[in-house]
């Protein structure tokens, strides 16, 4: 899967590799025949993945999941990105599944999603007797129309650690279809007139910021998978396409572009892998996740430019696979925080850490030490 063969296979063991290849085989079989339809229906593919036990990896068994580490799921998410698979896997497993399990709830069967914290700006919490109900609408909820439940986390105003959770059935809502640049569903949910009941979570449960970070990391993982595909496609095209009597990969100008792409891809992959490892160790990993999203978004921009430039006009058509990836990259790089938002946040944290803080951040705990 990696074009930079020297650096591939440096993370995860044999079991994880098996998970990855199984997933890749499932996706390749499903998506090979009709790439142009990949932005559409998700039900068949979802059923296939659920049947194969791929949908709740890393969600604890106690909550109804399949267990395993986030690193295991990361391998699956990257594979989804590589194949431009149209399924809410990150939403189901890494976001909704995680939030429900962390709140001590059982994860239901079927595709799930979350309302990203940015989507809740148009919703309001209203007291209802001893409890709270959420009213209004949720904007740009990924995959809402294709899921059975939407998990919502909202911080309680004025209460530092207070968080409420609601599980919303999209069938109770008016679903206004929306989409990102890649045609992936980003729907608006108009909540029912009476609102939806929320439950207050005990301290130490999931919170909106942690959800945002996981969303950012989830997008980074999808991006890394997609980047690898763009790199593979670009290397292949440059080898096969001839101009002026020789393959275009023999032109130095093309080599410069491809090398820049490879560098950006490996940089993003390394940082995403590191952030996953930090979370798997049980650390909050905020800064590492921010760095992962920054590197992924930066690499996405390189991949969009270089991928299209090297492919020439064919890459601009819907007849070629490239647009499935570049349009996703254009969308994913901005979802759950773009690189300038996260860079400002990470920079502020570095500045606040005082002398030596930056170096401490980079060296504690060092990644390779954790691998050994």
């Amino acid at each position, binding site marked *: 899967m990696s074009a*930079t063969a020297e650096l591939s296979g440096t993370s995860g063991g044999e079991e994880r590799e098996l998970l990855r290849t199984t997933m890749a085989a499932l996706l390749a079989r499903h998506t090979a025949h009709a790439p142009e339809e990949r932005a559409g229906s998700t039900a068949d593919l979802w059923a296939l993945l659920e049947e194969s036990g791929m949908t709740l990896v890393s969600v604890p068994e106690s909550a109804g999941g399949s267990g395993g580490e986030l690193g295991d799921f990361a391998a699956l998410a990257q594979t989804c990105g590589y194949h431009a698979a149209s399924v809410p896997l990150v939403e189901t497993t890494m976001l909704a599944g995680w939030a429900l399990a962390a709140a001590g709830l059982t994860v239901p069967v079927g595709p799930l999603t979350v309302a990203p914290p940015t989507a809740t700006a148009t919703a309001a919490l209203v007291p209802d007797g001893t409890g709270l109900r959420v009213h209004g609408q949720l904007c740009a909820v990924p995959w809402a129309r294709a899921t059975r439940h939407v998990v919502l986390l909202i911080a309680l105003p004025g209460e530092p650690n207070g968080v409420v959770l609601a599980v919303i059935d999209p069938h109770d809502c008016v679903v206004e279809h929306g989409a990102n640049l890649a045609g992936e569903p980003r729907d608006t949910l108009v909540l029912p007139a009476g609102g939806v009941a929320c439950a207050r979570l005990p301290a130490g449960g999931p919170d909106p910021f942690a959800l945002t970070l996981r969303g950012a990391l989830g997008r980074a993982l999808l991006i890394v998978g997609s980047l690898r595909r763009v790199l593979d496609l670009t290397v292949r095209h440059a080898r096969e396409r001839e101009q002026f009597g020789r393959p275009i990969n023999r032109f130095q100008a093309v080599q410069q572009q491809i090398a820049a792409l490879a560098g950006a891809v490996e940089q993003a992959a390394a940082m995403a892998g590191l952030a996953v490892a930090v979370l798997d160790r049980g650390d909050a990993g905020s800064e590492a996740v921010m760095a992962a999203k*920054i590197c992924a978004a930066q690499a996405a921009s390189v991949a969009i430019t270089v991928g299209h430039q090297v492919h020439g006009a064919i890459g601009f058509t819907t007849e070629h696979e490239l647009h499935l990836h570049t349009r996703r990259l254009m969308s994913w790089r901005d979802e759950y925080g773009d690189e300038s938002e996260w860079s400002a946040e990470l920079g502020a944290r570095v500045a606040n850490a005082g002398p030596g803080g930056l170096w401490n951040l980079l060296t504690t705990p060092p990644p390779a030490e954790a691998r050994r």
Partner: protein
Amino acid sequence: MTTTQATVAEVRSEVRRFLADELAAGSFRPSCDAWIQGHSAEFSRRLGQRGWLGMTWPRRYGGGGRSALERFTVIEELLAAGAPVAAHWIADRQTGPLLLRSGTEQQKQRFLPLIAQGRLFIAAGMSEPDSGSDLASVRTRAVPTATGWRVNGRKVWTSHAHRSHFLLALVRTEARDDDRHAGLSQLLIGLDSPGVTVRTIGAMTGESHFTEVTLDDVDVPAEQVVGRAGDGWRGVVSELAHERSGPERYLSTFPLLTELVSGGATDGETSLADVGSATARLWALRSLSLQVQDLLERGQPTDTAAALVKDLGTRLEGDIIDITRRAAHRRPGRTGGAALSELLGAAQLAAPSFTLRGGTNEILRGLIARGLEA
């Protein structure tokens, strides 16, 4: 070899204590590009006494028998602090490992313990006036004599030959038109040998680490050939992987970033974002560099990956200068004090060399692109 997290943490804090003491004693001021420019024989000897040179080499050759990860930890701490490590850098990073891989028993016993003590410095004699990144084009010739080799030629861009004891020179021992990489050899040439002339070349930074070494009928004993004569290219290639992937390829201007961050010149939104972006890239690069170290340790191929680290890292080193410039420019009245101004000035003057040394980035990118095809 397995290294526990605890061991590494211990090494790290030991180096940090040492550096804090040295700074307190005024033995050095943090500077950018100190792994090339910061030459202090005294400092190198003190590192040697601590066991921080030749760390991974076997104890029987005066090494420390430590893991590559422990060595990585020591050198990244030294680089991040901007400590003067140039005196021993080439011997510790390249020549020692080369001798361990390809040297004779006699060479190992003779050179390695002294290098590990910080008492023997070696300059790298690869480039020549007309060679640049194309090392296989070297013209310095060595012809066999009764006792070894007689060398004629000229090496240039060699750092610190005027302060080193030996030159590890890449020379042509056999003219080969069919294979440019064949017929090359690496010789250890005593810099005090008759016929050796070392001239320093001033750099635009204002200092003179570059030298030109002229070799005029220099006799080199046979026992100072490293590896098999004619087979020198292999050694060069493996040296280059070590040379291109280490933390010196992304930390040359780190002291500047440290000073910027702690000097309070990052109040603006733009400069915070710049710092955050540089942090993310550095972090990722450190991870990549560790991955390459791991591959080197396991004897895996790393040419492409090492070139990639060098390309990404050296560009980041340059970007850190621009980030600092912009942050300081926003507040011309409070640039963080003299330390920041000095570091910034020195870093700017050194920066043009970052993407040249160790192979120009454009050539490395060609190598990366071809590596992706393999």
